[in-house]
């Protein structure tokens, strides 16, 4: 099925939109990739809704989706840097196979997206409990906050886990 309205938006605004992305990314190949991604997302959103969304203000709509993708792009880059730095610091990972590393990297990307919307303190609490197996009392003492606050932060983080929409969960 050809989506006429989206095709029209694409024809009319794609080159403008690529320019918009380019000014934010400083790389034309990346801009072209993200432009493609944006239209794909819109198409998927329409499929999911089972109807064609009427794009009253197409540029505003593209910018909204595009901004999110640009942000994700930079977030992935910063995760990648942190990942490489950690790898170099952790001798125990030298023995890990390439397949395992790839799997870890994908898992990290997914979890990173999930945790991104959380406040830094909420994220710290969640990771201390989940990764280090710290009890709420220990977390409270280490971060200098009340136990009740720790519980509230945990609840917030778990809510994010439950609401997070992605295929991997």
């Amino acid at each position, binding site marked *: 099925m050809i989506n006429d309205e989206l095709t029209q938006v694409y024809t009319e605004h794609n080159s403008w939109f690529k320019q918009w992305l380019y000014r934010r990314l*400083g790389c034309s190949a990346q801009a072209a990739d993200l432009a493609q991604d944006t239209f794909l997302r819109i198409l998927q959103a329409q499929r999911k809704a089972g109807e064609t969304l009427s794009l009253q203000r197409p540029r505003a709509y593209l910018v909204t989706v595009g901004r999110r993708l640009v942000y994700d792009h930079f977030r992935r880059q*910063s995760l990648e840097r942190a990942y*490489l730095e950690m790898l170099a610091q952790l001798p*125990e990972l030298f023995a890990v196979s390439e397949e395992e*590393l790839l799997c870890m990297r994908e898992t990290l990307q997914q*979890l990173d997206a999930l945790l991104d919307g959380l406040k*830094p303190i909420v994220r710290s609490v969640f990771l201390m409990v989940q*990764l280090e197996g710290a*009890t709420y009392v220990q977390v409270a003492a280490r971060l200098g906050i009340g136990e009740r606050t720790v519980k509230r932060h945990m609840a917030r983080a778990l809510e994010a886990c439950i609401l997070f929409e992605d295929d991997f969960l």
Partner: protein
Amino acid sequence: MLMLDEQVSPAQRAACARWRAAAAEHEQAWLKAERVQARLGLLPQRLAMGTLNRERRKVLKQLLALAILAPAGYVGYRQVVPLERYATAVGERRRLTLADGTTLDLNTDTVVDVEFDQSQRLLILQRGEILVDSGADRQSTQHRPLRVASAEGLMEALGTRFLVRQRDGRTQLSVFQGAVLVTPVHGPKQTIAAGQQLLFAARGQATPSPAREQDSQWTRGQLIVEEMPLAEFLGELARYRKGWLRCQPEAANLLISGAFQLDNSERILAALPATLPVQVEYRTRYWVTVSAR
């Protein structure tokens, strides 16, 4: 969510079991939370902590810096000053001819803004390395100086071919023809003649040294070195590759000479053990360590 804490009483466990059984959505939500936990469990603890719990404000800063380059009034501004940006990805090189006839070569991982107006032809080197072969600028009725701005200062071409490389905290200028007038951000002016190079910081006065024509050979896809310490050589090579290229300290001072084809850095790495007493280890495709054998 209390279940994650070790200090959970049997009564609390029972209450939780009742909550999960009370409705299908409850059970689903619970399972979803558990799957996140399971995923986290797959990761080495220190790796996950060091990456997922990193400082994220830097990401936002980077975004803001880019937003400033494209202000709201951009479209109006553009009609007065045609601002163009050219960029290359890691491993990519590009040659352009600008409106004034200037030839501009961009080396790997480079961003340069071109701002021509009535009074000057300005190239802003945001990062990376460029080779400039200045054009005659015939269409302009008045003389417009050709200038390159780096983080450390301004360089004005006096009819010339020269190279500018943005290094960490310093700018490298190599002049191959003509001369270039250098003005550091907080330092005295200096004229650099053909055959000289200057590595200058924002402050203080630097001393010129002989320029190396080989430094411009990347425009032909070549890296030419003479007796270069291996660590420095790998540092150069790393500019053209994604990921990490590390050199162990024991191998750092081995000397290497030769002409290398930049488009195939894998082959260069593969050939290293044949010329030097080193071994090349691939942890992943993007993480390579060279160590003494």
